[in-house]
């Protein structure tokens, strides 16, 4: 799949932002007044910034509000609802902390639950697609949630749990890559089933429908950069998990913490780039690109 910058930015940034909102909702760190304002501002910048980036990806952003209508069937529509609900509930909770110095705990818990639900709905947009076997596995939501929880803990300055959550996310990431590498083969979809000609013999793409590219080849049959995938996976793991975990285990300093956050974010973006660039859509079979 085409790793569009807007979608990578959206899922990485808003994942972190909602992760931070989750911890804030539970009262970690227990902050009030100006300090609370800074934490909430950061969380909103990330989550709202991510959501705005995702609307750049739309052909008609001016009609984006219509995306609220189909929550009964569409995960994208559900994501629109959960994200707005989270932002509103957490705004009420944050206002209590910042302006009145009181923690309305039940509202915070509700906001925390909604934050996770938002990340879950985002992951289901990808995980629901049977057409992309690498994404169509239960580990996809687990991966998104674990990254969001660990990144959020990192931003919330929870130096005791964050390193372990990062390690868990790293393990899940490796499992996701491992399962993902076998997903297309085990999906059972091949050029033989795609054409129904497998009964006659071995099918090979002889000639594509046209000499140039089209929307499908650009959007779904993206192959650039796959050859560096192994190296990028190592880089992603180092930046996303290893380096931040080590930095957090060192004696605390703000500079090291900031470095840990930057490293983690860069790692998540690398991992998300791979998530898209490595994903094989079955339509590629018709174009002879998946063998």
């Amino acid at each position, binding site marked *: *799949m085409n790793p569009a910058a807007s979608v990578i930015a959206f899922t990485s940034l808003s994942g972190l932002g909602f992760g931070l909102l989750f911890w804030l909702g539970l009262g970690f760190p227990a902050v009030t007044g100006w300090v609370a304002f800074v934490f909430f501002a950061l969380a909103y910048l990330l989550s709202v910034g991510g959501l705005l980036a995702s609307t750049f*990806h*739309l*052909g*008609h*952003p001016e*009609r*984006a509000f*219509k*995306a*609220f*209508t*189909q929550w*009964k*069937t*569409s*995960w*994208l*529509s559900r994501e*629109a609802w959960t994200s707005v609900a989270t932002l509103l509930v957490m705004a009420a909770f944050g206002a209590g902390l910042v302006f009145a110095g009181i923690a309305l705990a039940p509202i915070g818990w509700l906001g925390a639950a909604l934050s996770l639900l938002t990340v879950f709905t985002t992951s289901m*947009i990808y995980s*629901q*697609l*049977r*057409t*992309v076997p690498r994404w169509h596995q239960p580990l996809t939501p687990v991966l998104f949630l674990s990254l969001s929880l660990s990144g959020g803990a990192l931003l919330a300055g929870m130096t005791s749990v964050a390193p372990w959550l990062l390690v868990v996310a790293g393990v899940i990431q490796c499992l996701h890559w491992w399962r993902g590498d076998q997903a297309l083969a085990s*999906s*059972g*979809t091949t*050029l033989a*089933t*795609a*054409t*129904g*000609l497998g*009964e*006659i*013999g*071995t*099918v*090979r*793409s*002889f*000639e*594509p*429908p*046209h000499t*140039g*590219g*089209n*929307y*499908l080849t650009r*959007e*779904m049959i993206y192959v650039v950069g796959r050859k560096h995938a192994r190296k990028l996976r190592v880089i992603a793991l180092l930046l996303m998990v290893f380096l931040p975990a080590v930095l957090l285990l060192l004696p605390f300093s703000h500079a090291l913490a900031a470095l840990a956050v930057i490293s983690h974010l860069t790692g998540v973006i690398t991992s998300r780039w791979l998530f898209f660039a490595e994903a094989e*859509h*079955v*339509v590629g079979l*018709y*174009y002879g690109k998946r063998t």
Partner: protein
Amino acid sequence: MTELPGETTRKLGLVIDLDTCVGCHACVISCKGWNTENYGAPLSDQDAYGEEPTGTFLNRVHSYEVQPDIGPAQLIHFPKSCLHCEDAPCVTVCPTGASYKRVEDGIVLVNETDCIGCGLCAWACPYGAREMDGAEKVMKKCTLCVDRIYNENLPEEDREPACVRTCPAGARYFGDFADPESNVSRLTRERGGIELMPEQGTRPVNRYLPPRAKDRMAETQTPQLESVGADLPGFLGWLDRALDRL
């Protein structure tokens, strides 16, 4: 609404005969011709006369080579457009309700004024039947020529999809799969019409008729020529030996 209807009254769709299709791409052109000036936004092209021409098409013809265990390879032309699936994943993923499946005839359509151009439906379709238009930024797909098949301003014989009407080989049939006695149902039954990617669970309506078994060429070929032996008699033999000695 992007909830799929439980059952549609009719199931309109196409049968494509892979035995007959000659790969002329006439259906591709007539489809583009009709659909660029009728239902919805035009099918735009980008850089049409330049280095990297590209454009929106609702129907495209692939060609595949199939090598049987015995006998020569076969070349099979393979037109592909929306299969108007009964369990259309493209419809249920749509966040706006722009994509829908009609209860009355099962046609899958996009309401372009509701489409936000998120592209998710094209990701959900395993067949590559949806393309985002490069100029209008809305999703385009085969409408089964919904603006022809019911159009009383057209002569009776033109009230079928443009691709079917145009196919010079007669490789395309249009009809109602819900009626067991329709042309398409009978063809599917008699010729063993195939469903593409059944494992994707989309339950496509359109069916493809597999190529008929080919004549066994090897059995009807002229016997191979006797090999020209080393010990030829007469002049040729002498020449052969003389050239060898050189």
